[in-house]
């Protein structure tokens, strides 16, 4: 597919953006990365995602695809000859979709509350976050990855959030590893893969970014 033109509109710290970078890396797709300013949104972003005006957006031969998990499924379907993300059995596919959706519903929302809330609300978010990670640990079981022997859809949905764990822990004053050592072990295993390590950002840099956001939103 030498004539493919692929551009990713993204924000470096976004775990949703990292999902797409990881998916493209797993498929070996060459693309142009375009860092977006979400404060002063550019014309291209507004044109490519007029409904939500958010990143990530994948632009493939001029046509935009929005919403990170939809983009990941699209990448899987277009570049289908390599590294399939979803299993071939419909029931296993349904389980993968369920758990990726779980990551969206639980990990992102609770994680966000850890760095934006205080007091009781923050404590509730920490508990919800850890409970959710424990459910994911149960689902992982003895497998090296959620996808089995290789990285799959749920791994792509989840592992980018690892880059925000240091920020959650520091701001929330708790240790994720102490509660969920198996999940942290899993994240470390993923990071040994080149596709993962080159698609994920440095947690310390993400923490600085979150500190900046908290100042900006007046959360102290």
């Amino acid at each position, binding site marked *: 597919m030498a004539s493919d033109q692929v551009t990713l509109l993204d924000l470096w710290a976004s775990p949703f953006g990292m999902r797409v970078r990881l998916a493209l890396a797993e498929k070996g797709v060459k693309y142009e990365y375009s860092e977006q300013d979400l404060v002063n949104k550019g014309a291209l972003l507004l044109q490519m995602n*007029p*409904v939500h005006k958010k990143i990530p957006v994948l632009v*493939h031969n001029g*046509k935009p*695809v*929005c*919403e990170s998990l*939809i*983009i990941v*499924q*699209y990448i899987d*379907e*277009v570049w289908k000859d390599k590294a399939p993300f979803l299993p071939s059995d*419909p*029931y296993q*596919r*349904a*389980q993968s*979709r*369920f758990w990726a*959706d*779980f990551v969206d519903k639980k990990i992102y929302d609770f994680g966000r509350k850890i760095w934006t809330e205080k007091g009781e609300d923050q404590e509730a978010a920490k508990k919800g976050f850890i409970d959710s990670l424990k*459910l994911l640990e149960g689902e992982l079981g003895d497998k090296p990855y959620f996808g089995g022997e290789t990285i799959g859809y749920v791994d792509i949905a989840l592992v980018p959030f690892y880059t925000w764990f240091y920020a959650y822990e520091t701001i929330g004053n708790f240790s994720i590893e102490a509660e969920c050592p198996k999940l942290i072990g899993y994240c470390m295993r993923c990071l040994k893969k080149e596709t993962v390590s080159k698609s994920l950002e440095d947690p310390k840099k993400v923490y600085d970014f979150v500190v900046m956001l908290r100042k900006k939103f007046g959360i102290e």
Partner: protein
Amino acid sequence: MAEVKLYGFWPSPFSHRIIWALKLKGVEYEYIEEDLSNKSESLLKYNPVYKKTPVLVHGDKPIAESLVILEYIEETWPENPLLPKDPYERAMARFWIQYGVDTTAALGAFYHGRGEELEKAAKELLESLKILEEQGLGDKKFFGGESMNLVDISYGALGYLLAAVEEVKGVKVLEPSTLPRLHAWAKNLEELPVVKENMPAYDKLLAFVTGSMNRLAKN
């Protein structure tokens, strides 16, 4: 052919989605009504994570979350396809299905709102639906074109359920004057036999919505 069971809740559009998809695919299934105030052992066993309906059980294998169930049905019974074949068109269909999650949240705010909050929620719901009408539906009869697909199925609540909530709240949002094409779409959807024959009677639904809103008010 392994047995198919659906654990559902009669007023819930999330359950209706699954019924319509199974019917469109010609799949025989056993429907089990759940009392959500007294959840069955089976429901708790089959959906331990969320403990909600709908849950589809195929053979003895459970699938939860209505949108996940819809994709499973589409893949397991490929006759009468309910999603486009082309990956880009599929991504667009999934985008509009996902947009419905935001619409459901706006519908929830409308349902719970009172006074000024109700006005604000009605306005936001209207704006959300305008985008759906202009950019999602466009000039098409259904989101699926000439016939309904998973996108139409996912927006079913905009017909009968929204009408019941509007009546109880005394505020109209989806009208021919405000959302002409979407209003027409809802009417067309409800005329389709699979929808008409598989949705709750309006009076019964209205009583349910009224009752549940009164219970909320007491709390």
